[in-house]
């Protein structure tokens, strides 16, 4: 009944607001980012000049940028390994048949539901040597422990990854849990009769059946990690030095603090292309994952 011409106009009227909003808040700005990336714009000096690919070449000679790329890779890989190992473990814990199951799931939803800024601001204090939660906790077991986490490059990096895991790992686990619930218990029964122990049936049934689910989730979580910004913004401000400045943080610093918008745009474009390639390739690979 909705196929007539008259209704087609109506159809477009109905989608128009949504289309317009998305057009102006995502498509227009991203095209503009592409355009601007070929210009040298220094707002402070009123400079606006076409420079071709120079901004792109500069990225790979900028030591701050190289540090950012290095840390972003460490952050993404480190955090994703954590997500995979601990996330699957947590999903299994959430799937246990105990009476506290529902309460436990509610608790695990909490970190997802909270703003990252709040967690990151609290973490800034939690990792304080003298009065922070983390060291206080460690001192329950080792009273003489002392460590100023956010002052040293490596420990600051671990801390950022740990906070990211605390916040997002539960969400990852819940999404895996969704897949876990689709595995019929008959499979495990059958495996049990055939003499497989719990560990064996985990590796032979659970993991293979979840593999596609996990793969697709990992793609999304990797993309979110690559554009992570607020952890570092609130927790370390990219410090010590520039050692925890994720690429996304670098972009905002160049764009809004240094007012180097052309250069910022070229970094953004590279980031976007890397993400598009990475997600495209892994989506393709996801189709190959069996089961």
């Amino acid at each position: 009944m909705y196929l007539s011409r008259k209704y087609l106009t109506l159809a477009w009227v109905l989608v128009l607001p949504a289309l317009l909003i998305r057009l102006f808040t995502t498509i227009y700005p991203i095209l503009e980012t592409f355009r601007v990336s070929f210009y040298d714009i220094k707002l402070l000096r009123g400079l606006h000049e076409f420079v071709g690919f120079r901004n792109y070449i500069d990225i790979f000679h900028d030591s701050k940028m190289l540090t950012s790329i290095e840390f972003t890779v460490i952050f993404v890989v480190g955090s994703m390994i954590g997500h995979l190992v601990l996330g699957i473990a947590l999903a299994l814990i959430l799937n246990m048949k105990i009476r506290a199951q529902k309460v436990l799931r509610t608790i695990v939803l909490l970190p997802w539901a909270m703003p990252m800024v709040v967690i990151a601001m609290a973490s800034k204090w939690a990792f304080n040597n003298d009065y922070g939660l983390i060291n206080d906790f460690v001192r329950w077991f080792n009273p003489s422990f002392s460590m100023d986490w956010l002052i040293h490059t490596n420990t600051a990096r671990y801390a950022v990854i740990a906070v990211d895991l605390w916040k997002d790992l539960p969400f990852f686990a819940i999404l895996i849990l969704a897949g876990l619930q689709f595995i019929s218990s008959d499979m495990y029964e059958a495996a049990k009769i055939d003499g497989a122990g719990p560990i064996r049936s985990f590796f032979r049934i659970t993991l293979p059946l979840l593999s596609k689910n996990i793969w697709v989730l990992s793609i999304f979580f990797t993309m979110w990690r690559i554009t992570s910004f607020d952890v570092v913004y609130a927790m370390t401000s990219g410090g010590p030095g520039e050692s925890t400045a994720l690429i996304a943080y670098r972009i905002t610093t160049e764009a809004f603090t240094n007012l180097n918008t052309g250069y910022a745009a070229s970094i953004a474009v590279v980031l976007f292309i890397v993400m598009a390639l990475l997600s495209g390739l892994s989506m393709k690979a996801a189709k190959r994952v069996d089961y």
Partner: protein
Amino acid sequence: MVSKFSRPLILRGFQWLLAAVVAFLILFPLWWIFISSITPAGELFSKPIRYWPLHPTLDSYKYLIDNVGLMKKIGSTAIIVGVSILVGMVISVMAAFSFARFKSRWLTLAAAFLLASMLIPDIVTARPLYDFLRYVNLYDTYSGLIVLYISGILPFTILILQNYLKDIPVSIEEAASIDGCGFFQSLYYVTLPLLRPALATVCIVNFITCLNNFFTPLFYSNGISVLSTAITQLPLRDNMYAVPWDLVSAMGWIIILPIIIFVAVFQKQIMEGIMAGGVKG
């Protein structure tokens, strides 16, 4: 004497232990934030930390209300989040209905475009969008922020509603039209009530998404301050460290407490929403 039932008992004990560890790791930091918020500022510098304060006080909260303008920030957060969810929902229902009911090649393309635009990260569009907002005088205005908040929830909301609408048979609307219902009447009286569970789920998830939105208010507003950005701009009070922990913890708890209650009440819908769309908070 490893009898038949001692092993399940050990297993069950182990399961409870695991559950307790998980609960501890999540709840303990939240408890610490709460305790810090009611500890007098000076006593925060104690080693080891007292997880049960000697002199509980609401001083930090009072300071937030008197000197930081907490009530105003709560007000602007409520306005922005409330209007965004409401208007966003109307726009989404319209679009989702159109996508689910009308068939045309261009319309399918438009739907695909909406979904694909979800993949464009905020960070890539930030600076041009900022310049654009200044240009059209929407920077640091409620309307500007609301449009951006709505933009953030549109793709997910439309996706979920569209899938749900496809499962509602068109024949119900046709029957209504035979009975003399006009187009909008049938949408309002017949389709919307059937859509209610999906609307509730989407609303709940969007509430959390909007409340947690940090990027938008940080870059596209200055004078209008919402809770998520306000926590990064608190003043230092007699504290030599870079973190005004007394105020941060109080502000943090003001944000966290409603979320805890909200999650506890709507656990079921949130789970459904998350699993249906794989939402990012």
